[in-house]
């Protein structure tokens, strides 16, 4: 298997605080890699680095063989932020159409994308009047336009009801079946089982990595929260 994302020796120091120190990570093409860890563990910084928004102190990141932030990657990678980066003074449809136009895609599939995130009935609603969970879904929808090969999704399932969460995870698996690669973060350990590979993070360092079952076997525990706690206490 080839790596879609390859991070080597990534160091990020922000205002004197070391967020990441010589961090390494490989994401296999066509897989879902889950970054799991509490708030402040460096998940967002890793994702911002991958999409080329983060100023790096050191190290290198290769995406599909190109350096992160490279012009040729702009249509191949998409990013959905934690706090719904959408235009609140536009409707759902207008938001999606705009981000589609930026990717150079016609807006014919707008309705389809809205259905995917269960916002089919909210198309003409202003984003400002959506609930927090609906806004998060709209932000996710704007990251699905075009045909990105890599999706970087920061806490995409936060605040969603379990039914919708299940639907989104099955959507993500459909994406990987199409050959797409997903880097997904979550601070909820129970999301772990949806991922092919897991990286447990704390304070910018990797506690452990592997498939969900590997991590469980290693710790001899069933509950992922308990696995996390035992890993922290072992240090």
């Amino acid at each position, binding site marked *: 298997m080839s790596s879609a994302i390859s991070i080597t020796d990534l160091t990020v120091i922000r205002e004197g605080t070391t967020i990441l120190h010589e961090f390494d990570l490989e994401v296999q093409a066509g897989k879902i890699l889950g970054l799991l860890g509490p708030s402040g563990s460096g998940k967002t910084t890793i994702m911002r680095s991958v999409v080329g928004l983060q100023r790096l102190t050191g190290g290198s990141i290769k995406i599909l063989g190109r350096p992160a932030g490279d012009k040729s990657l702009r249509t191949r990678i998409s990013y959905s932020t934690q706090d719904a980066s*959408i235009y609140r003074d536009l409707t759902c449809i207008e938001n999606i159409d705009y981000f589609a*136009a930026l990717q150079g895609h016609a807006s014919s599939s707008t309705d389809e994308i809205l259905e995917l995130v269960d916002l089919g009935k909210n198309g003409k609603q202003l984003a400002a009047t959506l609930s927090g969970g609906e806004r998060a879904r709209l932000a996710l929808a704007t990251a699905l336009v075009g045909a990105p090969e890599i999706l970087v999704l920061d806490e995409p399932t936060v605040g969603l009801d379990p039914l919708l969460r299940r639907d989104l995870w099955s959507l993500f698996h459909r994406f990987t079946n199409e050959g797409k690669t997903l880097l997904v973060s979550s601070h909820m350990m129970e999301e772990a089982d949806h991922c092919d590979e897991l990286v447990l993070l704390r304070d910018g360092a990797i506690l452990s990595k592997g498939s969900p079952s590997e991590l469980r076997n290693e710790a001899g525990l069933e509950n992922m929260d308990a696995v996390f706690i035992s890993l922290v206490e072992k240090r």
Partner: protein
Amino acid sequence: MNPMRTIASAKRVLLQLKHDPRSMALIIVAPCLLMTILKFVYWSQPHVFQNVAGSLLGVFPMLVMFLITSVATLRERTSGTLERVLISPVSKFEFIFGYALAFGIASAVQAVIVSTYAIGPLGLKVVGSQGGLIFIAILDALLGLALGLFVSSFAKTEFQAIQFLPIVLLPQLLLSGLLAPRASMPRILEVISNFLPLSYAVDATKKVLIGQGSILNDVAIIAFFLIFLLGVGSLTLRRTSD
């Protein structure tokens, strides 16, 4: 340059304005209201109204677009939409030209209505062409846009962005020839005013009002400022940050 992406950005900005009818009304109504007040303030001195109201036609677009742009780009920065745009295939210039196109259209609408109102009901005499006034107004609006884009990178909140208005625009307003002819000011102020873009917008507007003199030089100088400020403004749109 991909014109489709520029047009998509312009369309998006205009849609945002469309969803905010109150701001749209203020853009049109506020200048008309101020003109009306001026008319009555100088009721017994029509020649002063002629001079001040005429110059103001060249000031409004800059003022309004400066405010709108500094708040709009600041919102793009704080909401994270700017980052999403910058990691998309759009270039900085396509993005800025999108804004310029949208605000150019908005200021053209403003200029048509405000100048028609001033010429009609308020009796402002324009010897030159109204089209000339509107053309200068659009250039002026784009100056406001470029300045707004530039200062928004120094502001962390919308509140701060608004505070730049007195610093960036009021000195230009005072020295632009709106209150007193630039040639009659102390030499040092006149020299300073030569380096301020609004001075040339007011000069050009006055020339159109009396229908004398060529505005070609003024337009060229405004265009120079515009390109320079847009260039500097685009430098503030950085993809990577700490």
